[in-house]
């Protein structure tokens, strides 16, 4: 599925974590491509290595992680070969990330305005006034009511949905080419989830940003993604077009996952994944 329009190409990425009991492979031989403006859903259960893939693309893995092998081609450059300074210039400008918990993603002692304005100040060298103006515009764009008040607030004064809008503003302010969204709606109230999801979709469509959407929610993946990649114990078990995967899942794990979604009207017991894989 390689084409010239690919913004990201991951080849055989293998990441381990050094632990007290030796090395543990978190991600093994993961490969995928992502086209311009496309949305790829990375689906898997907790501990399947989906977040590790996301962190590896920004090279912000924890210090005990080792990238064993593989290549991450972004915009024609293997970002694993870049030095730290070049990488820093990519983060936040060309590749952004949205974390799961908006409240702990924001620094509790800095005002919202400063945290958004920081990005254009660092990357574009804007002066404070310009950067704040840009930040305010971005907040307005993400549908924050009363952006002036929010600019002057601290994170604890905001609701979860509002905080996630701020985090999205930070991620999208420089119109990055690639957005890694690591379960951006999981920590939010159900009523807010849909709004935030719509917002992300709207923004990336507007800016032509490609998205790696990390989630454990298959129905969510089906709803927004163009392609889907299912991970299980650090390995890719299914990768392809969303419709294809949902119509005819090839791997038993994917089938099991799909069967694990409870349906209204279904009576009887839902089987555990192990039971279904063993069948």
């Amino acid at each position, binding site marked *: 599925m390689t084409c010239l329009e690919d913004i990201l190409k991951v080849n055989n990425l293998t990441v381990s974590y050094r632990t007290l009991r030796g090395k543990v492979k978190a991600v093994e031989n993961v490969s995928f491509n992502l086209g311009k403006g496309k949305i790829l859903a990375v689906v898997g259960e907790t501990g399947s290595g989906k977040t590790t893939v996301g962190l590896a693309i*920004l090279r*912000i893995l*924890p*210090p005990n992680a080792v990238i064993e092998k593989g290549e991450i081609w972004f915009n024609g450059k293997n970002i694993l070969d870049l030095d730290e300074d070049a990488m*820093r*210039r*990519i*983060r*936040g*400008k060309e590749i*952004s*990330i949205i*974390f799961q*918990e908006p409240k*702990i*993603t*924001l*620094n*509790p*002692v*800095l005002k919202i305005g400063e945290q958004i304005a*920081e*990005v254009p100040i*660092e*990357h574009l060298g804007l002066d404070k006034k310009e950067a704040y103006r840009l930040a305010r515009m971005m907040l307005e764009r993400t549908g924050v009511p009363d952006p002036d008040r929010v600019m002057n607030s601290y994170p604890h004064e905001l609701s979860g949905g509002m905080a996630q809008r701020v*985090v999205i503003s*930070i*991620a999208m302010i420089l119109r990055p080419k690639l957005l890694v969204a690591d379960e951006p709606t999981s920590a939010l109230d159900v009523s807010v989830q849909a709004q935030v999801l719509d917002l992300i979709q709207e923004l990336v469509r507007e800016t032509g940003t490609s998205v790696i959407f990390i989630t454990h929610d298959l129905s969510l993946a089906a709803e927004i993604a163009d392609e889907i990649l299912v991970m299980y114990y650090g390995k890719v078990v299914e990768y392809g077009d969303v419709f294809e995967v949902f119509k005819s899942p090839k791997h038993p794990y994917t089938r099991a996952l799909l069967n694990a979604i409870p349906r209204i009207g279904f009576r009887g017991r839902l089987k555990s994944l192990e039971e279904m894989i063993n069948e």
Partner: protein
Amino acid sequence: MKTNKIITMLIKNEKLIELWRHPNGKIGIIISVVLVLMAVFAPLISPYDPNYPDTANRLAPPSIKHLLGTDQLGRDILSRIIWGSRISLSIAFLAVFVTSVIGLVVGLVSGYYGGKIDTLLMRITDIFMAFPRLVLALAFASALGPGIYNVIIAISIVYWSFYARLIRGVVLQIRNELYIQAAKAVGASDVRIMFRHILPMVTAPLLVQATLDIGGTILLASGLGFLGIGVQPPTPEWGVMVSEGRRFITHEWWVSTFPGLFILIATLGFNLLGDALRDVLDVKLKR
């Protein structure tokens, strides 16, 4: 600007009121504010020139004319104490400021980068912490020679390692927070993360430790003055005054006692204030 956040917060909101309601805080505030005012307005409030020898009234006991008596040269002790507060407080504030800055930078770098840099810096602090404070200060003060600035340098050399340790501890706690990772993820530089994102979190424990150490520093500076290797006579420094009155302690007790009493009050005042600050800002320093 953000560095002063805690301080501005103290000034304008309920923390100051809370501090005032704190039983130790009230005494601490009163003592330290009075001492600072005394130092600032020394020329206005001191009844005599601190170095004017009233030879007719040498070693005069406390009276209406000389409230705290006079010393062996006939100098008014109250005036000398008032002028001495300038010396003691400026040594204390400057030394604590220098130590905070050094400790802050070392602690931030050490805690943030970790690894070899951390090991190296922490072994250096170990060396400095291995000596008793007074002994180390004595050694450096005598090596540097007498004078106010050398006293400040000597005290800073003694104290910086404690600040480095304190700051490093706080940095280690917050280094792995998600918001630090998130700041990294938007491309913030290390310097920016250290000074914009981590520094504000460090201000509260730093402020508490600095306030507590102002008392300790006054005591240490007076100790050096007393031993004759700090500030030199005839400068009206409290430690020097205690030392000069030593010879007359049996009969003319006021010469040594009053400056000594002020060392006690000043140390006590800043310690109480620091103690109350710790409670109010909810800082845990013991680790």
